[in-house]
Each structure stands twice: as C-alpha cells, then as structure tokens.
C-alpha cells in the first residue's frame, strides 16, 4: 500500500553552517524524491486537504501529475487557483491547512503537500520559457493596483490576463511587499524566486512604478479622476508596527521587527557592499512568537549575535509555522516561554543593557480560545542583552484611509470590504492584509484574485461612456 512509504524527508542545510549564512535553509525535493512523496497520496474521493486549502487548490490532481512526472500538468492545476506556488510552498502554514487535514496524518504523516507545491512552482520558474503565456488582447480599460505584495501581484496578473492595462504603484524601491522586506532570504530567496515571480507578472504586460506613495505622491482620487483608471485595487498590507508601550522602548538598541528585517532584507545591511548599517550587538532578545519573531531572531543569529525568543504564552501557543520553530531550535535559538517583558533597561548612555521580564502562567481560555497568560507576581528578573526586537504584530498604515474620502475602515484601521473586495467607494477594491489585518500570503493572494474577478465584472457592468 502506498501509504506504507514513510514521508520523504527533505534535504536541508546543516544547522550549524546555515546559522552563519543567509542562504536558503531547505533544498527542496529532487525529481526522484518528489515522485516518491507524491506516490504516497491516496487520491481521496473527498479530499480533506482541498477543503482546508484557503484557495482550494485541487491537491490530489496536482500531486497525481507529479507522481506521473507531468510537471507542466501539475503547474497548470495549481495555476488555476494560485499564482505564487513557489512562494506559498515555502511559507504557507501547511500544518494548519492542507497537511493538517490530510487523511494520512491521522495514522502516520501527511503528504508533504507544501514541499511538492514548491517543487512544482520552482519547476515552473525554471521552465517558464516553455510554458504558454497568453496576454489577452487589450480591452481598453485601465486598472491601478496599489502595493506590490502578494495581493497586488495576484490581482494585477489576473487582470492583465483578462486584457486590462494594469499598473502597480509601489511605495518602496523594490517590488514584492513583505516578500522582499520582511521574509528573509534564508526562507524565501529574493532573486531566484521573488524576482522571478515579479518578472512573470511583468511579462503579462503589467507595468510597475516604484517610489509612488499613494496618499502622498498622488491619491486614490487622482488615479480615478486625473490618471483615467477605471478601478483601483488597494493591496497596501498591514505594515504599521506595534510597540508594547513599556518603559525604555525608545532606548538605543530597541527596534521593531520591521526595522530589523527591513534593514537586513530590503537594504541588505548584512552585506558589506551595501551602505545601510544595522546594529546587532552581542545578545538580541526578540519579543513575540509568530513568523515575524522567528524571522527576526534567526536573522539576529546569522548576524552573529546570541539570540533569544521571549514569549508570554507556552510553546503550544506559538503562532509561527511549526517548521520555523523547529529550524530555529536547530540553529541554537534559545526559547524563553511564559515570559513577558515589563521594561527595557538602559545604561547611563541610553543604550539597552537588559530586559526586565516577569514569569507567566496560563489561566482560563480567553476569547481566542487560547489560555490567557497571567503574571506571577514578584517573579521579575532581568535578561542581559544589548538589542531588543519587538515582534508584536502590525496593523494597516492609516495613510490611504486618511487621504481617501468615503473609504470606510473598521476600528482596527482595516479597510472594510466585501468577500470579493468591494469597498464603500465605487470603483475602489481592496484585499490582503489591508483588509484582514496581518494574515498570510495565500489569503492575500486569494483576495487579490477574487478582487480581480470583481473588478472585471464591475467594469463590464459600467455603461460605456
């Protein structure tokens, strides 16, 4: 029986070595490994994996094609629902989605759907020239996309395929959103993967203008009125970092994870040929337990520091992908669970010299269903360190909201939009983290594609002028 084959392990860079470089941790499957792993799939009649995939990729169908060696076919199956397989294969929290529901996981290990998706995505990048690109004939309508993260890229490429003239406006100098400024090179290679995905969007005829901050350089209304766009998609993400509001947070040596990661990833501070500096000190404490915290702490380690995670709940509640936690531990990251900072301690010159924390215990479950961390009184202690990185989550930047009249946002600053992306403003659509708050690449990508379909029907339903 096929499922007697154990899950095929994936080759990875040695932990001791990779903790000193920025090259990708995971090498991925080769052809043989991928076919063997794919052969484990039972091709279920009612595939649970598919139901648990946020964009409902036909997983058994693509896996069957991998098993048969038909990679173009596999790419086409995934392509029907996802435009970023090489990215999502690497960064999706598969254990909570497809793989978490795979029937094989009940008795043994689930099919390595993520690794197979990555394999197919990478194959497609390498064989892009052989795959048909069919930019549709131009239909005479223009759509502006704000933000070049996964939601914007997905929305733009779908619209271009339908024949729209699409232009993406990006605030930063580089295209890709969190994929280029947040998620590190060692998890998601920038040139080999992200730049290739961007190139394929451009090959469809999508134009990209960087250095345009919508709300400042021009407004949503300028795009509609002055620049003649029929519709606008807002995919500006949730980039505003949160701080704890504790004493000492503005000492020299305290960073948001966004700053720490942006200096390293977007600005290449770790590479001496680039001008942007970064301060890493000798010991870095990262506060938080999500993917962002894992990325920051592993980056600190690679920059040569001793690196520690401080998280107020227990390990079971860590919201990061399981694989990242596992990799971080292999790389020698210290985890201090049930620990919550109360103050950053500075020296007489105003630089960080430690972080004062309290021990926590888990009490009754809160609204989120997770057990609420409660402070153990009098348990205060100081961890010596010279850098503190706050990875506490982010919220949408208020710039677009404050410069676009009539655009409804909720209490948390997220743009209010329907399931298919329509906002309170006619012709203005939104999706991704800007709508949901910080979420995932796959959800952002899915939202961009839904909005593209909605924009198409909106424009088609408008009376011709």
């Amino acid at each position: 029986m096929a499922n007697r084959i154990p899950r095929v392990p994936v080759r990875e860079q040695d932990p001791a070595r990779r903790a000193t470089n920025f090259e990708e941790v995971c090498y991925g499957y080769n052809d043989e490994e991928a076919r063997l792993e794919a052969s484990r799939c039972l091709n279920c009649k009612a595939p649970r994996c598919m139901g648990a995939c946020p964009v409902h990729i036909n997983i058994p169908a693509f896996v069957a094609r991998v098993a048969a060696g038909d990679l173009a076919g596999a790419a086409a199956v995934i392509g029907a629902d996802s435009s970023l397989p090489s990215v999502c294969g690497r960064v999706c929290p598969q254990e909570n989605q497809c793989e978490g529901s795979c029937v094989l996981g009940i008795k043994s290990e689930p099919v390595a759907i993520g690794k197979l998706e990555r394999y197919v995505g990478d194959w497609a990048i390498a064989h892009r020239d052989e795959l048909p690109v069919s930019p549709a004939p131009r239909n005479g309508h223009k759509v502006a996309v704000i933000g070049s993260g996964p939601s914007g890229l997905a929305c733009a490429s779908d619209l271009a395929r339908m024949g729209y003239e699409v232009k993406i406006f990006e605030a930063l100098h580089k295209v890709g959103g969190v994929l280029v400024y947040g998620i590190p090179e060692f998890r998601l290679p920038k040139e080999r993967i992200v730049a290739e995905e961007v190139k394929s969007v451009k090959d469809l005829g999508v134009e990209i203008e960087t250095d345009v901050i919508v709300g400042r350089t021009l407004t949503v209304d300028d795009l509609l009125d002055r620049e003649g766009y029929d519709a606008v998609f807002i995919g500006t993400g949730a980039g505003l970092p949160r701080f704890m509001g504790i004493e000492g947070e503005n000492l020299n040596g305290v960073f948001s994870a966004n700053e720490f990661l942006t200096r390293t990833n977007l600005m290449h501070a770790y590479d001496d040929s680039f001008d942007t500096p970064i301060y890493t000190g000798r010991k870095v404490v990262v506060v938080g337990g999500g993917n962002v915290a894992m990325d920051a702490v592993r980056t600190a380690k690679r920059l040569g520091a001793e690196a520690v995670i401080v998280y107020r709940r227990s390990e079971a509640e860590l919201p990061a992908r399981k694989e990242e936690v596992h990799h971080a531990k292999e790389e020698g990251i210290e985890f201090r669970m049930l620990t919550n900072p109360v103050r950053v301690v500075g020296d007489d010159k105003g630089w960080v010299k430690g972080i004062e924390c309290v021990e926590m215990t888990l009490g009754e479950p809160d609204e989120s269903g997770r057990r609420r961390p409660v402070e153990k009184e009098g348990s205060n202690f100081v961890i010596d360190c010279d850098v503190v990185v706050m990875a506490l989550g982010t919220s949408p930047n208020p710039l677009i909201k404050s410069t676009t009249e009539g655009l409804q946002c909720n209490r948390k600053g997220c743009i209010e939009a329907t399931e298919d992306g329509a906002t309170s403003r006619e012709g203005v659509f939104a999706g991704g983290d800007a709508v949901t708050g910080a979420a995932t690449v796959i959800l952002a990508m899915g939202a961009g594609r839904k909005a593209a379909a909605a924009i198409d029907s909106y424009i088609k339903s408008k009376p011709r002028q």
Partner: protein
Amino acid sequence: MFEIVSRRDLSPNITEMKVKAPRVAQSAQPGQFVIVRVDELGERIPLTICDYDREKGTVTIVTQTIGISSAKINSLKQGDAFTDFAGPLGRPSDLLELPEEELKKQRVLFVAGGVGTAPVYPQAKWLKEHGVTADVIIGAKTKDIFTYVDEMRKVANVYLCTDDGSEGFHGMVTGLMKDLIERQGKQYDRCVIIGPMIMMKFAALATREYNIPTQVSLNALMVDGTGMCGACRVTVDGQTRFTCVDGPEFDGHKVDFDEAMRRQSMYRDNRKTHPETHNCKCHG
C-alpha cells in the same frame, strides 16, 4: 531614474541640486521631504524639499556632507541620476492649515541654522506668496558658511548672526532672538525652527519663555519613511510618534530633544558608516 538637471556648490560641503521628479514636484508642499537612493547599494536618505517647480517638474534639494551617504549624494554631477527619489513624505507645515484670514495676520519668525536654512526657504516663500513677510534668523559659525541668504532675502526679512561675529549679530541664534524680541520689541505669533537638533532644543527653550507657539522639524533616523519601521520614533508630549508620518514638524515645546539626539546618534560609531571611530565592542 531621476535626473539631476542642475547642481551648484553652496559651500565646500553643501550642494544644491534640482532633480527631475515630476510626480513629487506636482504634490510637494512646504515642510515635506523626499527619500533618495543614490544607487542600488545606497541607503534610503531623507532630505527636505527646499523648492519645487510644478511646471518644470523639478524638486530642489540641499545636502550637507556628513558621512558616506551624503558624500555619495554630493559627488553626483549634473546629468547623473538618483536611482530613487520618493515623496513627498511627511505632513506639510502647519502654516498651510491656517484659514486665509488668520494666516494674513500671522507674525512668523523662522530660525534656521546650518543646513536647515534651505528647508526654511519653501515655507518663507509660500508665506510671501500668501501675503505674509516673515522674519528669518539665519545662524552660522562664521560668515563663509552662510547658504541661501540671497534666496531668502527675496522672500523674507533676513537677520544674520555668527558665532565669531564675522557677519551680522555676534552670537548664537538664541542671542539674536532675544535681541529682536526684547531690544527691538518684535512680536511673533509663531516660530518655526529648523537646524541641528541641539540648536532646535535651545531655540525652542527660548521661545517657550516668550510663549511663542513653536514648530521644530526633526531629522530622526529613517529607513522607509512611510511609517513601516519605527526607526524614526520620537517622544512628543510623552507619546511615541513616528517622525516620517506624524512629522517631521512637531510642537517644539513638547519634544524630548535629549532622547531624539541620542537616537539620532545611533550609527555614529558604526562599523559600516564610521569605520574610523568604530572600536569593535559589538557586531554592529
């Protein structure tokens, strides 16, 4: 790419450049800034918009050589181009929010020091265009390093001071402020101070004594300039604010200058930006 259409030296280490950036020129307002990158390896460096020409699509910047990045900027020639020139960023000056009637009655004092003179210019010019002639104090160590004086004289009443007395009032800007207000009996409804952090701190202390509402333009460290990183955070009235989106201008009587100065000097001893002073006690 954003071409440098003209360039001139204002002093041995300060240059003025007009850069072709039609979108920025179209939307720029006094008080705002841009973030530039010289090349693919460059830092994102914030610079104040010192003037703009919407018709020609150009934006004027004035840069003082401080370290690696500003030196790189000042080594560019006419015809060269910036890889990136993003903006306008930050909030426009508060002056722009005043109702026309109130604006007309305003008696405004600008205090400029060092490379802060050029950034005062667009505000003074804007006021002039709106019927208000402001007083501008320009301070310098010595007369040879004054910049933008002729330009400023066209749009405002200029008062010069030098630390060494080589031109104008002999003393610092705070001394000249005192002279104007106490000896010459001048009265002001508001004051805008732009210059080195230490100068802004003391000039703001002075205006507090005279009870003149005061704005200062903070030059915090920045990375993105869009509110994404928090590198630029400062404390104003006990609250953390992001200079790039909530500023750069803040109430000068409420800014925690000591913290702002400390944070600004963060990379002064960095291996990459200042190898000469870096004594390797860390990995940064």
